[in-house]
């Protein structure tokens, strides 16, 4: 009798612990991500170990994060959601959430507790910038420069980008106002904590564009993350902005003569959203996967493959060495105190409100 009770109790425990049983979960999962080294880090840290535990699951990766918002809109319109889990930047997650295309979730219900026992909500903290957004990594947009093209005085601060006399040559900047406007105002003497107040006014926007005007003839505009590394490797540009993980790969992996400028790096977040409208089986599988893929250890594991900071506080102490290169990853994290002396955080609220206006202004400035 006692044994039966104990058995029953332990079964009950197992049942309550695992979010759903295997029978009512879909065995196919389409995950959308960015391709390249980033996606392969997710495969190694999340999906490969997951499939090892659940061999019945097949994971298909779709490299469509770039157009995730448009595609989800089309899918919604056609009433045919074919994606199960989508990796997007926080700004896109906010848009998708507002449009009702992404599912709202309860962090403490969906996500694992931190390894140290803190609740998921506290462990992710402020990084849950939207009710639909499941944070994964902190990345930054920052500058790289050709070490052999800057003479004996390599740049140490971001305003070198606007200094054509000291650092002649082309620069690569992203073909959008976000980040560029902030850097322009900062280098035009606007104090860091006033940047967004200034940028909210028409004069402030003109001021930023006027500053960008000083280097406009020397700018090559990029739109895909792979562009700047290619331009730097070619020696086509002397410096250019891109994601810190891309620069890490150019410098450490590909051993190109490129240096990194951490000054005024702009932090941003990337994470998952679950599309609205999945069937119960699909949702059960996705929830199971997300629970696994966002726990403390898994987020720390991802940093073995790419130099992006895990979005959980409890993962930070577990960041170890690069899986292939065997170097310590901590100094390459954008969040490392050495690197994060002077930083900016992507201002989601500001850009949500002003993006359309400033975009239009920026685009018309671009063709002038």
């Amino acid at each position, binding site marked *: 009798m006692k044994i039966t009770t104990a058995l029953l109790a332990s079964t009950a425990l197992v049942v309550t612990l695992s979010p759903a049983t295997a029978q009512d979960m879909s065995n196919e999962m389409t995950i959308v991500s960015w391709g390249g080294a980033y996606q392969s880090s997710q495969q190694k840290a999340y999906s490969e170990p997951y499939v090892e535990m659940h061999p019945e699951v097949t994971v298909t990766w*779709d490299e469509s994060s*770039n157009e995730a918002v448009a595609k989800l809109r089309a899918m919604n319109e056609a009433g045919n959601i074919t994606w199960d889990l989508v990796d997007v930047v926080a700004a896109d997650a906010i848009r998708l959430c507002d449009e009702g295309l992404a599912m709202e979730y309860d962090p403490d219900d969906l996500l694992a507790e931190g390894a140290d026992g803190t609740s998921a909500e506290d462990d992710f903290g402020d990084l849950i910038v939207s009710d639909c957004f499941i944070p994964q990594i902190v990345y930054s947009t920052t500058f790289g420069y050709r070490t052999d093209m800057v003479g004996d005085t390599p740049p140490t601060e971001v305003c070198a980008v606007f200094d054509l006399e000291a650092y002649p040559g082309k620069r690569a900047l992203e073909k959008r106002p976000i980040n560029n406007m902030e850097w322009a105002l900062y280098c035009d003497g606007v104090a860091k904590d006033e940047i967004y107040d200034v940028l909210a006014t028409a004069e402030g926007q003109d001021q930023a564009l006027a500053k960008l005007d000083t280097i406009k003839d020397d700018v090559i505009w990029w739109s895909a993350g792979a562009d700047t590394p*290619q331009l730097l490797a070619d020696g086509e540009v002397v410096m250019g902005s891109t994601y810190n993980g891309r620069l890490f790969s150019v410098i450490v992996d*590909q051993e190109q003569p490129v240096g990194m400028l951490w000054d005024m790096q702009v932090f941003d977040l990337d994470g998952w959203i679950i599309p609205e409208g999945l069937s119960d089986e699909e949702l059960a599988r996705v929830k199971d996967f997300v629970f696994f893929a966002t726990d403390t250890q898994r987020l720390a594991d991802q940093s073995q493959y790419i130099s992006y900071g895990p979005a959980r506080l409890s993962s930070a102490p577990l960041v170890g060495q690069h899986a292939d290169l065997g170097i310590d990853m901590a100094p390459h994290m954008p969040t490392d105190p050495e690197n994060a002396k002077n930083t900016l955080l992507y201002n989601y609220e500001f850009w949500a409100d002003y993006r359309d206006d400033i975009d239009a202004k920026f685009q018309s400035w671009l063709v002038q």
Partner: protein
Amino acid sequence: MATVITLKKQPYSFVGPVSAAAGGFAGLFVGTAQGSGLLGIILGATLMAGLAYGLMTLDLPRKTVRLGIAAVFAAVGFLLSGPMGLIIGALFGAFFGWFPAWLADGKYRASLPPYLTAREVLWHYTFRIICGLIFFFLIAPIVVVMPLSFNAENFFTFTPEMLRLDPDGYSLKHYQDFFQSNDWQAALRNSLTIAPVATLLSVSFGTLAAIGLSQPHVPFRQVIMAILISPMIVPLIISAAGMYFFYSRIGLQGTYLGVVLAHAALGIPFVIITVTATLVGFDRSLTRAAANMGANPVTTFFRVQMPLILPGVISGGLFAFITSFDEVVVVLFVGSASQKTLPWQMFIGLREQISPTILAVATILVCLSIALLTTLELLRRRSERLRGMSPG
């Protein structure tokens, strides 16, 4: 060519400026590569004018002079930019050692009818130069890709090692990557399963449609033809978006069948056009003769009509195959990630991570396309030969 053409020696007042012009043109490219296009033009022009003068006044044996000039140019090229410069320099030198002599001896008129005026001769060569330039601008981007695909680095860059022709600068690792990476192999498999099935469908439906539409008694032939050809004329993105919503509703979106059907629809116009063209030369009395001998329409089709229009069917099929094999827009809409084809994989590879593996794949695809087009051309010639032989 029985006419005897007397080759006249040409005066320097003609050879000099023409050589100088050619030199200036070449100098533009060399100069631009070295930093100043204008300086290149001036130097090239003066150099060639001087060279032509020297060639014409000093009566040296032509062969020796040509070799000498090629050697000098090669040496200069080597000094300017290493082994690659050596090759380019030698080629330039060989040309410019030959060019003024060719002009001065009047040999440029040798293969032309003697009655042509100077202006006609000029046009004859200008036309060839224009054709050559068009050819060059069409081919150069494709050719540039090929050496880059053997790059030892992970960027689209001609590294200094490559330009030095150093074996270390080259590697087959991107080809290896293509053959070993699961993503690329899955994409290749998808392309190789989708394209043949789509081709088969296009060829069957397209041929039947073409035969039907060539019957004079079919009503609304022009209209039906226009509708069937429309996938070729309507912008691809519009067909793709339309197919996406339609296929989503009927549950075909994201399935192999959906992609195959979409590609078949794109391939059908090519088959219809080529088969209709071959049917124009098809003698209808042959089918009547077959019927007269007791063959039913199906037998007539397979035994009489099909063999005669086969070249058209095959070339239409090749076009349909290439259309499906190269297509990226429709598959992005109609397919899902598990139907990722080669062009899709290349598209995302190019956007997310500029890796020379794409160039390796491109090189392989270019070779494949050349092989297919060669087949097409051989078939066309065969069909012409057959037609020439058939009576009437």
